[in-house]
């Protein structure tokens, strides 16, 4: 590869150009002082562009920008939500997908518990069975029976 072929490739990142071209470029750079100097210029320019744009941006007072953004977002976007609490719960569940899946079963388990409770009241359920549904942490569901507690799902239960 000669300089004319190498120059347009200077500044490319690994994997951005054809592997054969990349190998030829590296071989050329190993022997060409001028192209090594050109590559150094490309890198220096990158530094100046990044620095310079941040310097330019710093010259403007951006104090009112956030207010302008907030004014453009309809208030309804913030209503109907409890700021913080619900968001934190969603974040927790998003980061703990097993718990989230388990918590999705909670309504079904509650319905089962209610069914069993009503069933017992009618006298059709197991004699002497005391059923209570509780929830520990966000998802651990425990059935307390006369035979002892039974953990159905959840990671946060303490093993009772």
């Amino acid at each position, binding site marked *: 590869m000669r300089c004319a072929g190498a120059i347009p490739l200077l500044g490319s990142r690994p994997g951005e150009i054809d592997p054969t071209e990349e190998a030829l470029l590296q071989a050329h750079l190993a022997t060409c002082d001028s192209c090594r100097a050109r590559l150094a210029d490309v890198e*220096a320019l990158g530094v100046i562009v990044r620095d310079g744009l941040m310097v330019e941006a710093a010259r403007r007072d951006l104090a009112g920008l956030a207010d302008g953004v907030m004014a453009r977002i309809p208030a309804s976007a913030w209503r109907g939500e409890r700021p913080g609490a619900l968001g934190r719960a969603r974040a927790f569940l998003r980061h703990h997908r097993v718990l989230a899946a388990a918590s999705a079963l909670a309504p079904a388990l509650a319905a089962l518990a209610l069914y069993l409770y009503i069933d017992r009241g009618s006298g059709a359920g197991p004699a002497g069975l005391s059923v209570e549904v509780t929830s520990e942490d966000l998802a651990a569901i425990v059935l307390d029976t006369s035979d002892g507690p039974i953990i159905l799902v959840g990671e946060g239960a303490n093993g009772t």
Partner: protein
Amino acid sequence: MALPDLELVERARGGDPEAFRELVVRHQRRVYAVALGIVRDRDLAWDVSQEAFVRMHQHLAEFREDAAFSAWLRRITARIAIDVLRRERPSRRQEVEDVPEPELREAAPGVLSTALGTDPQQTVLRRELSGKLGEALDRLPEVHRAVLVLRELDGLSYEELAERLSIPKGTVMSRLFHARKKMQALLAGYAGIDAPGREGAP
């Protein structure tokens, strides 16, 4: 202690306006820098920045947590800035082949990097060149400026640049080459370091 971006994103998704405002304040400088780098107009860059944050709010639910939030936001910004250029200044768009550069003298290889060097005293020159950057960018055609800013400030790959600018990868490389060549010549000229210091290509 400042909350991480992802925590603020989650809170903003949950309807917390203060968390959203904190995200705006935290990222507004860099967002404005990307916008200004592309549109080269302070008021337009302000509008682009605001629009970027409004769209960020609209699309928060789509943000995937395995991506870098700041990069995601800057890409929204760049997309808006490019759309603004296409919409508002079509008459000023120029293709590479149309760019006149009679007054530019090519900088000698290595002159910029050598001038910057690693000597602490040369950081003065680096600051001086950074201060002149805007002036140099103003003299670049928009098609060159956008590709250079997106590459250097936003870190986009050739493929991403091609997709973002709707041009072939070869055109991306060509525009980057021309943009860098002009910027090096302009900056070297501003700093008075454009005298050839090395021999040309073999």
